[in-house]
């Protein structure tokens, strides 16, 4: 029976003594996808990986790999491999023997091992360092050995637990690309763990956003970024502006691809807002806007409705400029605009009055649960 899903976690909970690490997690991972578990430290990411690799047993629920129930299968019998956070290379073995370890455990013939290991080493660009000990390699090289050591076994799934946390920024960016390419080339399912949202968005086919032992949202990077399903996801993934408001009445949508439209009071002004969600008159709402969704104009050019405020400061970030604004209501916003040398418009000075609007329909409207 071929299932679309290579790994299924069904109704999983995990307790360590009385600490709850995971509460009822359901997660299905597709064959061949690059899926990332994203969330703050302590939210249960590593625990999910250890449940898949077999180093932990679930307190409740079932783990399926390749359609088989594996709750009681020990790690060495599971067809998954792990790239550990600190690499965990065997310090007394050279690169070749590290990479060959899994194949030796499978009792593969020596000549075949040699061929596979050398082939794997050339894929990760380490064929010349086969005789080195891990202690004689740079961080990036150790990382590659760790990946080669896992991938050479041709696992159904490769698990990677914050594999870049020990690398500096530049190498990190480089390895992100390299891993992504490797995954495409090999077609192996990757389950990647990180607490870095940029990394998650850049690398994944799907992102699983986690918080305190629960899954908050599963979706493509674009969905996660543009359609966060709750405040946690919105605020954890990227910068976001949160405006307070209240639904006044339901109106007919003037945009083709949104289901509902409302007239709403937002920071003291009346706007029409769009959402897939259903709201009632009087609902308190949060209007979420990414910095790049905001539009700025000099105040006297603004066309009502707009939010009035003044520039606090501008920060040049190369391709974009971050502009901090304080609305007259006191709320501070961040807007981002592409930097364009010919365009004098965005050359704002602190104290300058501006009119803030946003691209119609790009707002995300959520019920304000604290109100």
């Amino acid at each position: 029976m071929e299932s679309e899903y290579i790994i299924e976690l069904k109704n999983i909970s995990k307790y360590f003594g009385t600490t709850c690490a995971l509460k009822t997690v359901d997660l299905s991972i597709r064959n061949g996808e690059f899926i990332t578990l994203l969330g703050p430290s302590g939210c249960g990411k590593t625990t999910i990986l250890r449940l898949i690799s077999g180093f932990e047993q679930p307190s409740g629920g079932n783990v399926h790999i390749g359609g088989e129930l594996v709750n009681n299968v020990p790690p060495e019998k599971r067809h998954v491999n792990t790239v550990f956070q600190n690499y965990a290379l065997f310090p007394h073995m050279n690169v070749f023997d590290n990479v060959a370890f899994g194949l030796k455990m499978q009792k593969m013939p020596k000549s075949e091992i040699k061929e596979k290991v050398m082939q794997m080493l050339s894929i990760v660009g380490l064929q010349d360092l086969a005789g080195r000990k891990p202690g004689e390699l740079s961080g990036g090289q150790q990382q590659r050995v760790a990946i080669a050591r896992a991938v050479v076994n041709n696992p159904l799934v490769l698990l990677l637990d914050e594999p870049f946390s020990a690398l500096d920024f530049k190498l990190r960016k480089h390895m992100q690309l390299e891993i992504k390419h490797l995954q495409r080339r090999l077609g192996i399912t990757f389950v990647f763990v990180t607490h870095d949202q940029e990394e998650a968005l850049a690398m994944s086919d799907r992102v699983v956003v986690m918080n305190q032992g629960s899954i908050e949202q599963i979706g493509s990077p674009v969905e996660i970024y543009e359609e966060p399903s709750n405040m946690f996801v919105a605020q954890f993934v990227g910068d976001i502006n949160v405006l307070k408001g209240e639904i006044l009445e339901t109106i007919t949508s003037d945009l083709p691809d949104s289901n509902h439209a409302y007239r709403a009071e937002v920071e003291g002004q009346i706007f029409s807002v769009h959402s897939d969600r259903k709201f009632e008159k009087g609902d308190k709402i949060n209007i979420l806007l990414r910095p790049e969704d905001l539009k700025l104009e000099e105040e006297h050019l603004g066309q009502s409705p707009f939010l009035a405020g003044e520039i606090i400061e501008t920060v040049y970030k190369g391709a974009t400029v971050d502009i901090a604004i304080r609305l007259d209501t006191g709320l501070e916003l961040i807007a981002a605009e592409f930097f364009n040398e010919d365009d004098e418009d965005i050359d704002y000075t602190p104290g300058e009055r501006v009119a803030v609007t946003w691209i119609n329909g790009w707002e995300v409207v959520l019920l304000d649960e604290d109100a």
Partner: protein
Amino acid sequence: MARKSQTLGWLYSFMVYVFMYLPIVVVIIFSFNKGRFAIWTGFDLKWYKLMFANKEIINAALNSLFLAVSASTLATIFGSIMALVLTRYRFIGRRILNGGVYLLTISPDIVMGISLLIIFILIQIPLGFTTLLISHVVLCTPFVVVTLMGRIQKLDEDLVAAARDLGASEVQAFVQVVFPLLLPAIAAGWLLSFTLSMDDVLISFFVQGSGFEILPLRIYSMVKLGVKPDINALSTIMFVGTVILVLAAQFLLKTRRN
């Protein structure tokens, strides 16, 4: 001011070292002396020749070697297992056992000697090689445990996990990964035990009996009749041997620690 106190400090340390090492240096120098008294009369190896011709000394030395090798091997086996159990498994009373091991390494030899003697008398084991062996194993095992526990605690737990992840059973992971990484510490524990056993006087004195004479006690009874330069020669050899073994142990513990 600072310079002056620095000089004083240096002088102080120098004096302490002189005080500690002078006796050893004197013994080494006079082991090569031609004359029999503490006046230098020229270089000669005759005391070494004399010592090697002394059947009793050679016999005691061989006995000591045999005892030290047996005791340190047994202590290394027991100590290694104990260290693994103490670090890997959680059980009730582990902390007490843990503390007990450290206590044993600092407990006075005289207490250990007397206690062992009392036990041997109680359970009626005749004093001789067996009691010496048991006592030396008891003496050395805690040092092996402490040496090894330090090393095991530094071992990355993920290494075992990585081995299992790659398809190794628990036994295979131990044989292929844990044991090779612990080997230097195990060897260091053995060497340490060997030197401890080789020069133990106090405990051996209580449990020796007659019939199996060991080197430190042979020397002790020789000294009672007056110090002859052949004892200097013997001491020099033991000193050099001990230093080499301890340095080897240190070296084993240092390498691969990175």
